[in-house]
């Protein structure tokens, strides 16, 4: 059962009248009740035009609590909105601005009612001035005690006007409502890959459209309960005579149980994406939630793609343009153990495609920022001297991620000129403007250097690659290979820098990496760049330094926290290696390779997200 409650309020007794709210509510009502578009129940759905607060509350009770259980509930409101004491209220005919709590409809009460009625999915669309003020409410609203029996976080919300703004009205209706209807009615393209659309996809598109209209839409939702079912996707080619209800395929109970069981953790990672990003915690939570679905690969893919939709939107709120890239890549990594299923491979390809295009855009944004501000990579919030440690790490990450997209396209057998161009420009900028900070600082940088050096070599940027390798090798030799270890606590980074300046690491030995993987990367790159003999001249300066390479026996577990199967190969300068050739000669040629294109690409994502592993196959095809 699909039910809609659509409210538009033009007439106010003590607030200024509006002209287009009722028309907006009617248009939404008519569109969503159309059997070929929304398929909402004509008998049980309601349209309210300039109602009183009593009429509105009565309608909510009837729509949500009378007769059979509700599959999808959609609530639309156009009219005045207001924020009091951090709570958002929707004003109707008899609402008073000095008594909103008793004369207007609070958003939190709607949430409580949804929690009690427990529809499988709920959609809220609010086109009202100050609706951005509901942001303040959401943190408190989306807790289990408010949502109650709804269990799974199946609520999506779009508010199309930010606080202190007025919802723009045009001759044809509110800007926000127009944008939403354009998506629903197929005038604005969302995708052509699914029969049904989710409100969050529409919200994302509306956000982009309204970006230039001075409105700041709020799109929020972690709707993991079943497949998208807000309205039909008119961009998807399917027999138009098939009713909407036939297009909605229910997911099995196991999916609801899995999501429900991990609700708190999923909610926690969702809310922290744009602030405290922790890819390991993220992939662990997602893996725990999808693992019970391993026997239903289609459902598993559906769950991951639903997460991707919601999480990516959340990530776009971060001030790091690479956050959405990392989020998508992390979701792809969680598919790694299931790639033997065709449907999972298809899903992985879609995620890889989204990640790679997002990565190219983020890299282009960085280049733009760098051209406007040569210090764009420095910490913007009180970094100060900490950038002496963190800037070299950021440079390696930046080069590694952007190089990663080049590898990704090559592995997939396609070329992307944008990806190659942006990498070339960023590398040249880094060498020109940040050469002092191109430092081997931590062994965590090894996978990034591997990807950046190999990508530069493959692209024919020989001079740049030589310069990069030279700077890194020089910095490594200068500190006698005493790189910071991968888990150095933040408060030990200052003592590490002090030790590095004094070139005396006695006091910080616990936090010096031993052995290091960076030197293995340098040596392999030196061969490809014909620099081995030059490196040989300085090897005596790092006499005694141990270095290693970890080679997994298979890549399906390459995203795990600890990869159990594989070999740790270790060498020591001055014992078994006196020249680069001693190392290269003993490098195993028969090490495992990824089983598929998707596994190889996701393996690269894994090494970018979890830099305690190097995707050594990125050296394949280079001179040995």
């Amino acid at each position: 059962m699909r039910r809609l409650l659509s409210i538009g309020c033009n007439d106010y007794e003590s607030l200024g009248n509006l002209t287009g709210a009722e028309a907006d509510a009617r248009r939404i009502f008519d569109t969503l009740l159309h059997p070929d578009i929304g398929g909402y129940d004509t008998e049980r759905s309601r349209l309210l035009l300039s109602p009183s607060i009593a009429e509105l509350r009565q309608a909510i009770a009837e729509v949500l609590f009378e007769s059979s259980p509700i599959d999808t509930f959609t609530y639309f409101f156009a009219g005045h909105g207001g924020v009091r004491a951090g709570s958002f209220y929707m004003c109707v005919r008899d609402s008073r601005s000095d008594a909103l709590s008793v004369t207007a409809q609070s958003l939190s009460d709607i949430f409580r009612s949804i929690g009690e009625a427990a529809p499988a999915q709920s959609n809220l669309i609010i086109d009202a001035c100050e609706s951005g003020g509901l942001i303040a409410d959401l943190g408190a609203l989306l807790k289990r005690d408010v949502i109650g029996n709804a269990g799974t976080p199946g609520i999506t919300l779009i508010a199309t006007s930010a606080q202190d703004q007025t919802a723009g009205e045009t001759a044809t209706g509110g800007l926000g409502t127009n944008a939403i209807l354009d998506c629903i009615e197929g005038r604005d393209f969302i995708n052509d890959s699914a029969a049904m659309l989710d409100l969050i996809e529409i919200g994302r598109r509306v956000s982009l459209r309204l970006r230039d209209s001075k409105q700041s839409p709020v799109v929020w939702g972690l709707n993991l309960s079943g497949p998208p079912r807000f309205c039909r996707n008119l961009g998807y080619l399917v027999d138009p005579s098939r009713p909407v209800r036939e297009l909605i395929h229910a997911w099995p109970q196991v999916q609801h149980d899995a999501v429900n069981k991990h609700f708190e953790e999923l909610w926690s990672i969702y809310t922290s994406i744009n602030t405290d990003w922790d890819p390991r915690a993220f992939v662990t939570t997602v893996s725990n939630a999808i693992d019970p679905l391993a026997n239903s690969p289609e459902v598993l893919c559906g769950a991951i793609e639903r997460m991707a939709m919601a999480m990516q939107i959340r990530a776009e709120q971060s001030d790091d343009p690479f956050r959405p890239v990392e989020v998508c890549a992390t979701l792809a990594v969680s598919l790694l153990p299931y790639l033997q299923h065709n449907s999972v491979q298809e899903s992985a390809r879609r995620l890889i495609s989204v990640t790679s295009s997002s990565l190219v855009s983020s890299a282009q944004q960085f280049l733009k920022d760098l051209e406007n501000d040569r210090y764009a990579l420095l910490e913007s919030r009180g970094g100060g001297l900490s950038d002496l440690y963190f800037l070299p790490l950021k440079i390696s990450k930046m080069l590694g991620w952007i190089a990663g997209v080049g590898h990704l396209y090559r592995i997939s057998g396609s070329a992307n000129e944008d990806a190659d161009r942006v990498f070339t420009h960023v590398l040249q900028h880094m060498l020109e403007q940040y050469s002092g900070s191109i430092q081997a600082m931590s062994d965590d940088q090894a996978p990034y250097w591997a990807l950046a050096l190999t990508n530069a070599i493959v692209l024919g940027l020989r001079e740049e690659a030589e310069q990069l390798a030279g700077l890194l090798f020089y910095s490594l030799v200068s500190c006698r290979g005493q790189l910071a270890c991968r888990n150095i606590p933040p408060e030990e980074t200052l003592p590490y820098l002090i030790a590095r300046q004094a070139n005396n690491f006695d006091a910080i030995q616990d936090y010096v990496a031993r052995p290091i993987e960076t030197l293995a990367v340098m040596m392999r790159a030196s061969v490809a760049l014909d620099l081995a003999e030059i490196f040989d001249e300085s090897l005596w300066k790092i006499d005694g330094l141990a270095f290693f390479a970890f080679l997994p026996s298979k890549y399906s577990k390459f995203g795990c926290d600890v990869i159990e199967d594989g070999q740790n190969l270790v060498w020591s300068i001055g014992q078994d290696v006196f020249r680069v050739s001693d190392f290269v000669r003993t490098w195993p040629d028969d090490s495992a390779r990824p089983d598929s294109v998707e596994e190889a690409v996701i393996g690269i994502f894994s090494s970018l997200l979890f830099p305690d592993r190097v995707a050594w196959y990125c050296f394949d095809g280079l001179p040995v």
Partner: protein
Amino acid sequence: MCALKNQPRNNYFSDQVAVQGFNLALNKYLASIQKKAFAQYLSHENTLRLRHGDVWKHPANPEASDGGMKEHSVYSETKFQDIVDHRLELIDLCVTQLSEEMHRQFAQMMYSTVNEACNRSGNIVEAKGMPLTDAFISMIEKISFSADRNGEIRFPEVHAPPDLAKKMIDAVEAAPPEYKKRLEDVTERKSKEALEREAERKAKFLQYGEE
């Protein structure tokens, strides 16, 4: 929720927790250096820390100085380009700059506080036109020695600019035996007075040193 971004600046691959950890370590490092510098002027047992308000009152000792909060502030400037050039010596430069300035401000405050107290009590020696040896002995005369609870005399500390201090030491060392005898007598008398005052202080207790 997804309000469109309006932050003025993108922050690439930032790890705020790690940056805060670094800054905390830097603050601790600076604090430890500052503590060592301040210890040159104040012993730990003469340091009172307040949690609320901003001044100490001594209701049972109206003559005691109230003291009070004095604000010290220093800042260090680092050029972005120096960071980008990875000049590790910036850490030393910054720490030295901050600690020296804090040290200077603290010393200035100490001497001005002592100066104010001396002016208030008239405990001043006018050394102009006087030989250094005489000025030194007059200064010792003006100072009350103190004795600790174990009967150990605490001799006064002399803070003087390095060149004046050297001259003073040279003059006292080169003075005739009669002068040295006079200085010894003053020191002995002052020590005796200090011990007497300490004994008087202890006598004010109902009992002292007996279980």
